[in-house]
């Protein structure tokens, strides 16, 4: 008995549907190369219809066809169409506005405990650094590295220390500001990423920043320049330390999601929290930009202690209001 010689069912099946697949392929190619806006309204309506058709073709083909090329083709086609049809389609400008008006302050509030913990760690560092340096000025050298100190050591005269606070210049300010912003933003982002190492390096980084600050405060206070130093630091420091604490909080959330997975699997829990706290780091980058501009321009141009204190107060009030009040009206959490 010889095998049947009619056209295969799977070949017949393919002949009937191939045209629709090709149409979908063409639309996807245009979306990939020129974007979704390139399609007309009619084509946009066709897209989900064609996608569902191709998806059902794939189901049937897996059941009746042994043509490997056809199966591979359909799998790839349906996968591409799936991503195109169900992918996020929010306009970038809308997403940015939504981020600042709702998402960013909301996520700060959601992880408030970690943000508070970050602040506590920095504060702990400041107090410890201050007290220890006050008790023994020689300790200053172990808290503030040589490259950071730039001559501001116990060996320097009071006049030299004071000059640093009022050494405003007018040249190259934009370079200075950009450098500060990019440097700090990099540290902040690294702080977030380091959270993956169970959060330990993040805690170290936060406390160390505090120690440095405390040691410097103790040095200036010993020369009677304490208030002037804070007036020099805080106008940008409120924003900058706030941003660092947000990054630190994000890193610690990552670390704790990894160490204490709760009722999810470790992998799922990490992804759940990771996506949310990445917003903290992104928002912090914007805050670093603000801080860098204040430090690079304002601090160099304004020498008056009163105005400096004023700006520090304004930034403090602004950020407090922003994180506590903005974006509450939207009600339900996303």
């Amino acid at each position, binding site marked *: *008995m*010889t*095998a*049947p*010689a009619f056209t*295969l*069912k*799977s*070949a017949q099946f*393919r*002949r009937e549907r*191939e045209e629709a*697949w*090709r149409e979908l392929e063409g639309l996807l190619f245009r979306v990939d190369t020129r974007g979704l806006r390139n399609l007309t309204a009619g084509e946009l309506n066709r897209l989900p219809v064609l996608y569902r058709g191709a*998806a059902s073709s*794939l189901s049937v083909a897996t059941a*009746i066809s*042994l*043509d*490997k*090329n056809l199966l*591979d083709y359909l*799998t*790839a*086609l*349906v*996968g*591409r169409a*799936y*991503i*195109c049809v*169900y*992918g996020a*389609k*929010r306009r*970038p400008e809308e997403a940015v506005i939504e981020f600042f008006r709702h998402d960013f302050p909301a996520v700060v509030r959601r992880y408030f405990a970690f943000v508070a913990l970050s602040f506590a760690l920095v504060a702990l560092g400041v107090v410890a650094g201050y007290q220890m340096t006050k008790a023994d000025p020689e300790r200053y050298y172990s808290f503030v*590295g040589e490259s950071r100190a730039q001559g501001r050591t116990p060996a320097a005269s009071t006049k030299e220390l004071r000059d640093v606070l009022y050494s405003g210049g007018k040249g190259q*300010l934009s*370079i200075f500001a*950009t450098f500060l*912003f*990019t440097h700090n*933003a*990099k540290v902040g*982002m*690294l702080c*977030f*990423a*380091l959270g*993956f*190492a169970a959060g330990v390096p993040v805690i170290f980084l936060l406390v160390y920043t505090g120690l440095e600050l405390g040691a410097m405060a103790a040095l200036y206070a010993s020369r009677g320049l304490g208030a002037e130093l804070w007036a020099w630091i805080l106008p940008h420091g409120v924003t900058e330390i706030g941003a660092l604490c947000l990054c630190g909080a994000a890193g610690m959330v990552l670390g704790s999601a990894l160490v204490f997975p709760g009722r999810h699997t470790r*992998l799922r829990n*990490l*992804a759940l929290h*990771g*996506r*949310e*706290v*990445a917003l903290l*780091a992104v928002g912090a980058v914007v805050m670093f930009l603000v801080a860098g501009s204040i430090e690079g321009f304002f601090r160099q141009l304004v020498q008056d202690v009163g105005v400096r204190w004023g700006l520090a107060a304004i930034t403090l009030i602004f950020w407090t209001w922003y994180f506590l009040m903005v974006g509450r009206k939207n009600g339900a959490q996303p």
Partner: protein
Amino acid sequence: MSAVSLAKERIHRVPTPEGMSLPFAVASVGDRAAAFLLDLMVIMAGTIAVWLVALLGSLVGLASVGVSFALLVGFLLWNFYFVHFEITGGGVTPGKRKMGVRVISRDGGPLTAEAVFARNLMRNLEFYLPVTALLAPGALLPESPGWGQLLALGWIAVFALMPFFNQDRLRCGDLVAGTLVVKAPAAVLLSDLSDRATVRPAMRPQPTGRTGPPPPPPPAEEFPFTREQLDIYGIHELQVLEDLLRRDDQGTLDTRVLEDVCEKIKLKVGWPVDRWQVSPRPFLQAFYRAQRAALEQKMLFGQRRERKKS
């Protein structure tokens, strides 16, 4: 597209709202590394270009503006290049497009901006930090002893080499963002090999020794196969044969391979000795068609035979 890949791939299945489970093949570490290197080259070229602009600016007296511009754009390039392209391109950067891979969300939902941020912020830990550590080991922990730096280096290496330690080739960023990098091949639909009467025969110069136009595909009756002869091979063998025939179509296959395979099949199925001399190509095409018909028919009745009887 060259050969149909028959290699074992790891498949990640995504449930769709239509109730299907869509298979995505996990991208290999090699493809991903190549895509990353391509993107890195673009970033480096961009950085160099920006500093050249800054240099030109300083020549016309805009040094300060130029350097700030270069610092800022360089920062954006190094930190937000991937973010930008993965958000606007639906998980595809230029390098990824070139290598045919794309980022998807592991749970099958849309790839959100949050996830893209999360996975790319981790590059600080996975790439920038290890590179710093390798180029300048002293800069990492300046005041620690040598063994301390070595320990830190080993720790960092764990993060950098993460994709080698799990089956889905997830790097730290993928872990944190819940994403996965999959193959997104530009699959090409080739003609149906069983449908040869309706399509033109292979368009390629014939190999040495044969002249004249290629013979038209023979009617199936020229090679009558019996049920028993078609009861030997399974789906795997059929698809290997499909691969061979398609490569032959594209002219990337040595004719001797075709002859070898033809001999083996004739021996295996017990081809009658009095008709032993056949030309390989038409024989194999006819065999493929008959074999596929037989296996597909069996499949319709619920018998799916993966491999030949051993």
